[in-house]
């Protein structure tokens, strides 16, 4: 059972556009929502993260919007650049039995064309 649903699977935008990647979750015990960026031949790298007591977080051109009541969160990339072309994973984390458990979304392959 996929606990974190991510969409779209792939996305193509022109340079300067604002790609938006969406994720939805069911488990209300999740208390940490990170996004990871993965370039070809590399492992995922933590990009930005948010906790459910905050509705928005910005770091540079990357913004997470969080809607706790709808159990949805999304990543926006402002003024997208070809260098942003990568696969993006959302994730959700909760503490279970004193340990952290992370569930990843299925990934979105973003291509930013010049």
């Amino acid at each position, binding site marked *: 059972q996929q606990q974190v649903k991510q969409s779209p699977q792939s996305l193509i935008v022109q340079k300067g556009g604002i790609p938006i990647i969406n994720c939805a979750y069911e488990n209300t015990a999740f208390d940490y929502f*990170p996004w990871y960026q993965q370039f070809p031949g590399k*492992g995922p790298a933590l990009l930005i993260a948010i906790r459910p007591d905050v509705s928005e977080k910005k770091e540079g051109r990357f913004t997470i919007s969080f809607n706790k009541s709808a159990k949805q969160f999304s990543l926006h990339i402002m003024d997208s650049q070809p260098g942003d072309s990568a696969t993006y*994973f959302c994730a959700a984390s909760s503490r279970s039995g004193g*340990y952290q458990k*992370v569930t990843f979304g*299925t990934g979105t392959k973003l291509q930013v064309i010049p």
Partner: protein
Amino acid sequence: EADIYQTPRYLVIGTGKKITLECSQTMGHDKMYWYQQDPGMELHLIHYSYGVNSTEKGDLSSESTVSRIRTEHFPLTLESARPSHTSQYLCASSAGSKTNYGYTFGSGTRLTVV
């Protein structure tokens, strides 16, 4: 520089061979993980460890085994490789503290079993 290292980066091996994928981290993280990544991007947790002499199987059934004798080292072993084991294997670690849940991933090992 704190980091997580995986070797080898690429491995082509014949069916029936025993292989060990190496993973080491210099951050002193207690928690370490192995993920298998499909060509279609999705990440599947196959093993994790919350400390020395602690190992657990993940969500995806795997014929591999792991060991955690030292905090910094978390090798994965396949006793008898099969073509179905062909995949990308990613190692990760985390501090898992209340203020830092983020994962640090290695660059991965691309395994091909022929």
